[in-house]
């Protein structure tokens, strides 16, 4: 059966629950270090153990991201990636994979420039399941969250350590698919996750929402992924993978070698996640 939109995400989390384990969500920047290699990395991720994939849409001014993803954005922009090319990459991926949920993640301006209705229509047609937009908070829901849900895509919101009990209902209100908990106040790829603090935060969130809770920021190693997988429904790894791709590309590695490095790291992280079986 081919699922689309919200069902593909829901189906994946249901399957994880049945397997009594947490999921691995991997992030890559579209077009990093170039379109062809990036597509091959994307295709290799599910077999290496990625349960859900986030594709970053490059932006010149990624103000919530640390140096690793900033560099990835610049590499991708230099390689000429655009929103259209990112969606085309997803279309190609869907020819080989109908089951892995894919979430597009980025900043609002490139979507704004593309036009929200056109973007949502094209993203859905390309096989996107959900959207994470870093700089559109609940206060601006009519801009993007509501139109996204109206076309049947998930709008995945971030909750953070600064999201207190008073604010949480507002964050949850129009969130769908899953909730992304940002493990630390800060930018991506800087600092290390504190599993005990995360466990408490996830419990607090789960008391208020039936949605699965994924945790990201500060997870780089298999053992960190394992620790988070014990307490959350999924662990998100971004900067570590992006660094792996960036270093391989900078070292002059061939596309096949870059793909192999990214797949190897993904297998290692997936191993960590799978060691943490849940009841």
């Amino acid at each position: 059966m081919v699922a689309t939109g919200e069902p593909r995400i829901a189906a994946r989390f249901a399957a994880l629950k049945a397997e009594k384990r947490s999921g691995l969500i991997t992030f890559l920047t579209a077009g990093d270090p170039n379109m062809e290699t990036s597509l091959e990395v994307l295709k290799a991720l599910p077999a290496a153990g990625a349960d859900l994939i986030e594709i970053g849409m490059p932006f010149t001014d990624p103000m919530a991201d640390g140096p690793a993803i900033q560099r990835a954005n610049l590499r991708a922009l230099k390689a000429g990636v655009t929103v259209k090319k990112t969606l085309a990459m997803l279309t190609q991926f869907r020819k080989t994979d109908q089951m892995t949920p894919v979430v597009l993640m980025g900043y609002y301006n490139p979507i704004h420039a593309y036009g929200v209705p056109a973007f949502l229509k094209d993203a859905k047609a390309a096989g996107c399941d959900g959207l994470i937009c870093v700089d559109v908070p609940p206060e601006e829901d009519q801009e993007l969250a509501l139109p996204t849900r109206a076309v049947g895509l998930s709008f995945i919101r971030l909750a953070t350590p600064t999201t207190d009990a008073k604010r949480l209902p507002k964050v949850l209100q129009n969130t769908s698919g899953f909730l992304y908990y940002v493990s630390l106040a800060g930018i991506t790829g800087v600092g290390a996750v504190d599993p005990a603090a995360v466990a408490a935060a996830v419990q607090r969130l789960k008391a208020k929402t039936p949605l699965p809770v994924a945790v990201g920021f500060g997870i780089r190693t298999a053992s960190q992924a394992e620790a988070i997988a014990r307490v959350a429904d999924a662990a998100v790894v971004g900067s570590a993978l992006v660094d792996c791709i960036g270093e391989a590309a900078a070292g002059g590695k061939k596309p096949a070698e870059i793909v192999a490095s990214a797949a190897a790291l993904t297998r290692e992280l997936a191993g960590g996640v799978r060691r943490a079986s849940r009841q």
Partner: protein
Amino acid sequence: MKQIPNTFKAGPDENGHFGIYGGRFVSETLMPLILELEEAYRAAKADPKFQAEIDYYNTYYIGRPSPLYFAERLTKHLGGAKIYFKRDELNHTGAHKINNCIGQILLANRMGRKRIIAETGAGQHGVATATVAALFGLPCTVYMGEMDIERQQPNVFRMKLLGAEVKPVTSGSRTLKDAMNEALRDWVTNVADTFYIIGTVAGPHPYPAMVRDFQSIIGKEARQQMMDAEGRAPDSLVACIGGGSNAMGLFYEFLDDAAVKIYGVEAGGHGIETGQHAASLTGGVPGVLHGNRTYLLQDADGQIIEAHSISAGLDYPGIGPEHAWLHDAKRVTYTSITDTEALDAFQMCAKLEGIIPALEPSHALAFVKKLAPTLPKDHLLLMNLCGRGDKDIFNVAKALGTKI
């Protein structure tokens, strides 16, 4: 949008929108912080003690009111409108930026914040922030693009003398927009104790309205001073615009004076047609960056394009959202001036009036040079001379091919 149609002074609405512009486009980590800031500012604004503190520093520290000066020789030279300068270049630290910094640091104090951060382009806002941080004994970190550090060495040294840490920004285009990205990254990492002093009428709500309020003393004083000098309000206003804080400071008071013509002057760099400029209204389209919707220099894919101006203070690919709204509403006429025209005006002002203006208001002056001769002699033209040019002499010398 809950604007009362017969006023231009009611904005923003409760969500920080000026028409379709403005808003609060920030990450979730920052949302609680800007909501708290908005609440604290609302309370401060209603507290006479807060205003009294601002008044005290305005008078005894900044040196306000700044004079309204009749530029007689310039008026004769151009042979048209009667030209007045609002001399905010005589403020402590040499520009209008300090008006806003005093307001924000007093608010930071009320909120119990222990650390100050800021972004800077030309270094004027960085110097003003470092100044108030020194005055109130708070540690201060200023983010500045590597490119700007190279071209504004005197201000970098000033900030260091004032005890601030100047952090070079090496990401992106290494100019003001990247400094703002980096300041936001700092803020999101140090949420518990840090106050971010934004230097212009941009950023997420409440910054555009708050900075405008702190700068609006320029227009309030100017109205009274013009009444004293001429017995009536000015006929037209001219100010330069990067983010647009000195312009909003002058314009706001007069927005509902229908007879007053208002001109905002953007930086045309090498010329709009070359694509190398910083004129967001003239050469940009609406988008979302740094917390607000406004006109931005961007490509068809929504990627931000680097701005260019000889003046580092105008070298920003966006503009305050209230200006975007006033542009669409056609209340203010926005135009642009090239690097070369600004350089000519810079030299003219020095020779005719004995005032070395900053390169930023030299753009306003270059437009005055075009406008004044077309107007009658009883026309009162008021220009905001918002900064002095000491910081620019090295760059101007370089541009003129002079070794100093």
